[in-house]
């Protein structure tokens, strides 16, 4: 996979992950172009389109479009599956996820994506394992936060 974009029906970008090195300018250009193309498509149309030398696979969930770019030989259906899996993960993590969850916790959405895909390849096919890794990392985060708080307490004691 070359990149993944999440954007709203209004064309606002909600998440972007690039697995190929591109300049910011190029990224912006691609994003603008793709958002326009995908939004212009009618709801009954199929989820695939050919774009430059890539294939675009997109799917709409509620008000959000999930859009992936894959190479010529890649499997479109498995890419749809990846998108769906990611949505499921978000759903499990946030508890019936909505666009606002992703807007306000965009870093979490990235962390989940990073546990699921690495360098554009699926790294963990088990939903359970992905969620476990995220939960543990979150726990670690809370622990260190707690830890630092306890240090403040520690200091006051003296």
């Amino acid at each position, binding site marked *: 996979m070359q990149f993944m974009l999440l954007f709203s029906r209004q064309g606002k*970008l*909600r*998440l*972007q*992950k*690039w*697995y190929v*090195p*591109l*300049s*910011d300018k190029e990224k*912006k250009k691609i994003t603008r172009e793709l958002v326009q193309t995908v939004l212009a498509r*009618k709801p*009954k*149309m*199929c*989820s*695939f*389109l050919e774009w430059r030398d890539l294939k675009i696979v997109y799917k709409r969930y509620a008000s959000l479009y999930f859009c992936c770019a894959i190479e010529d*030989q890649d*499997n*479109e*259906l*498995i890419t*749809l*599956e990846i998108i769906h899996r990611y949505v499921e993960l978000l759903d499990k993590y946030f508890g019936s996820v909505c666009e606002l969850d992703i*807007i*306000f916790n*965009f*870093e979490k959405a*990235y*962390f989940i994506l*990073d*546990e699921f895909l*690495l*360098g554009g*390849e*699926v*790294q*963990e*096919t*088990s939903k359970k*394992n992905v969620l476990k*890794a995220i939960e*543990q*990392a979150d726990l*670690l*985060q809370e622990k*260190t*936060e707690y830890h*630092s708080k*306890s*240090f403040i307490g*520690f*200091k006051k004691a*003296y």
Partner: protein
Amino acid sequence: MALKMVKGSIDRMFDKNLQDLVRGIRNHKEDEAKYISQCIDEIKQELKQDNIAVKANAVCKLTYLQMLGYDISWAAFNIIEVMSASKFTFKRIGYLAASQSFHEGTDVIMLTTNQIRKDLSSPSQYDTGVALTGLSCFVTPDLARDLANDIMTLMSHTKPYIRKKAVLIMYKVFLKYPESLRPAFPRLKEKLEDPDPGVQSAAVNVICELARRNPKNYLSLAPLFFKLMTSSTNNWVLIKIIKLFGALTPLEPRLGKKLIEPLTNLIHSTSAMSLLYECVNTVIAVLISLSSGMPNHSASIQLCVQKLRILIEDSDQNLKYLGLLAMSKILKTHPKSVQSHKDLILQCLDDKDESIRLRALDLLYGMVSKKNLMEIVKKLMTHVDKAEGTTYRDELLTKIIDICSQSNYQYITNFEWYISILVELTRLEGTRHGHLIAAQMLDVAIRVKAIRKFAVSQMSALLDSAHLLASSTQRNGICEVLYAAAWICGEFSEHLQEPHHTLEAMLRPKVTTLPGHIQAVYVQNVVKLYANILQQKEQAGEAEGAQAVTQLMVDRLPQFVQSADLEVQERASCILQLVKHIQKLQAKDVPVAEEVSALFAGELNPVAPKAQKKVPVPEGLDLDAWINEPLSDSESEDERPRAVFHEEEQRRPKHRPSEADEEELARRREARKQEQANNPFYIKSSPSPQKRYQDTPGVEHIPVVQIDLSVPLKVPGLPMSDQYVKLEEERRHRQKLEKDKRRKKRKEKEKKGKRRHSSLPTESDEDIAPAQQVDIVTEEMPENALPSDEDDKDPNDPYRALDIDLDKPLADSEKLPVQKHRNAETSKSPEKDVPMVEKKSKKPKKKEKKHKEKERDKEKKREKEKKKSPKHKKKKHKKEKEERTKGKKKSKKQPLGSEEAAGEPVQNGAAEEEPLPPESSYSLLAENSYVKMTCDIRGSVQEDSQVTVAIVLENRSSSILKGMELSVLDSLNARMARPQGSSVHDGVPVPFQLPPGVSNEAQYVFTIQSIVMAQKLKGTLSFIAKNDEGATHEKLDFRLHFTCSSYLTTTPCYSDAFAKLLESGDLSMSSVKVDGIRMSFQNLLAKICFHHHFSVVERVDSCASMYSRSIQGHHICLLVKK
């Protein structure tokens, strides 16, 4: 101090967090840009603070803004700061920001190398994980080279979580640093059989991606993958493996035969559409590669086609689309099996989804035959009529032309029909493909001699009709066809029925609204027509008529002379003079027609597009050599001839000079054909089937169907190609009847002899004879044309570098650059869990040095020697001159009296410091069977003269460690900050307990007197180890080592401030020269930055100025020259 803290926390209360920012942006819909620029200013303020939590929050907000399209490259350094935070919460945010905003052009990226290395070897798997994930997004060739070995080590990590990530990221490393592929490959291969399915799947992923690009190097893995394929039940993995086989089979047909069976089984059994689709695709690929080797694979093709039909019939648009896509792949090799589903494909043309219709169109392209071409095109023409939206209509238009013109008009049996289709297409308004239609008209009229008469009549009608002129405003619009029409009418004017009428049409005032290049063609061809008319009139003896035509020309040409287009103007004025001259001659009754038509004598033949390229360079001619030495002033002379030539190509080729040349040409052509026939490498242009029919005796030639052309053509807009369909059917019917008759006769004859089983006479493609006597003029090629050009591979293909033979044994020179130590100690720590730490322990401890500068330089020397990697051999005699300018501020440093921060680990690791060991900033302090201590010394700027020592304690025993206390013997120069009221000899408690296998970090603050003194402090860790059998009191001695560069903090400095500092003259100066450095300058700088806490202020070629600050605020400027 306390006040400062309180102030800090109050400030923080008013800081916006990410949620506030998002909410703010949503509330400022009208003046979003203004609001955000305000936020960015706030963020800039926050980044200036030393509190890492504030920084991390700021960086997090920046990451969000980056997504909204704001440039955050200016904060790259701050991102690195947050990345190097010790707390996971912040580190995570730092890496996220880096992975979103860093790219190869980010200059500070080289500063991250050691931070990443440190994180990779972190005892926490999540630190490692986050570093790997981040690295996968911004890995550069330099990072890949420096970290390849570390990542390779991680591939054998004890935790599958790390192994899996390490394996996947190796692919990115290979792409950036192909030299790492061979040394890493054995381990990668090993991972195919990893006990953890996630790791296994990762390894399959990586090898599949590698093999797709360069399959031949991975053939030897086929048996292993075959085993995996038959045993795996994971669809994600299966899909990858099957894809891999798809790439391998073209190289090894035996593999294909073996694959067919398991694949067809999978096709039958699987319920997952994605897997089914992959299998079908691979079976198709396999069968294509097997081509005609196997007789029994028609069953497999049938199976695929059947399954695809099910997909296409599905109500799911996605499956429909993919079904059509896969179908088009089968079509290339097995057109027959697809053609039987023509009904289905034609149905898809009516689908409401445009992308499906386009796919169906692609399929139709391959499905046409002589028999069904007219029918299919008729269907497409009706779609053209009802198509809404110009893009789809244009697509249809190009498809129609593609379908008809494919393989040299192979399927067209009636060119009159084709010309009328083209004429019908000119009714499309607002199309962008006028030039396409025009090109087709020209091509057909030039190459099919028999059609010229018909074409000319149609074209003259086009010239006559007004609707084309009306649309002349658009570029590439439909008016382009007038270009073709004018040219055809002019060039083949002898076929015109009413040349005078056409001439007048071409001289209408409205013509001047056409684009310049079309007008130019008009002007040129008007003369051809004129010449033709003159000749006719003179032959008929109508001198007056001839003069009238001349007068018409003289009257109308001036409108072109006034044209703004240079080309038109030039041609028109030239021709006007010519015509005026003719007029004079005519007045004297001199016959001129012969001479005028001599201007345009000769036949034009099409030239192959590659003809120019194929002219062989004569021996002894060097095209690159200068004929004359170029003049000193840079006039780009060499550009010009090419441009001229290009333009010539664009225009239609002009006339050939004379008859004699024609003969010569014919002779040469014959010779060339001979040569080509004998040359096995010459790819012959496929002989047109029409030609074949001509030669075939026995196939009866049906006379050209005569149509009353004037009827449909005088009324533009009336569809008439339909007539041809009917006529064609009739014609074929007649043809068939005649054939049948003959066949019957033959049969009757045969029946007399012996009885034959009667086979139904099926009308095959080959039976249809073309309506016209068609002779497609083949394109001209220069004599001695070079053999067909090879398909040049793209030299920039990033995957080419990975075309590496993996079966060759590994040579020593290929080993990955490993950080080596000059005199590695033999003692090895038994550490298994964290292999990187093991290395650190081998590092020789540095002897105490009295003078700071001496010490530093020696260190540098050592590091540089360590870094000799085989890659940098060329830079053998590089010298380094270092000038060190060190200035001390006049103000005396004040001893820090406050004891209150005692025992308190500093929370803000702002400008985090790394100690000397190059591998990681955490170095081994001491270890025994219970516990292992690693430490990291960081200076802090806001707390003058203090350094923080972070000690990671790892419990390696099966006991719980508790009651841990740390006691350190202070020296004159360095004192540990202790809790109030405790004496120098009391130990400081460690604020946590350690269950077995757990590690945690405690931080201690030390106050430093002089920053020019290296220090070693003795200390002891005492603890109670408690297990089921009881508790024992244990202790572990260690030596804390402060070097002078541990007192420095990385501080960015702007070049103007740097220049001022140098100008001030407050700095004292000394310099030193270091020999024998063999690493690249870039790396050297990175090393100095990391190990000695400098930052690069400015770098010009092989010279860099660097800056750092001591914890007591001394400025240190460093100039490094190569």
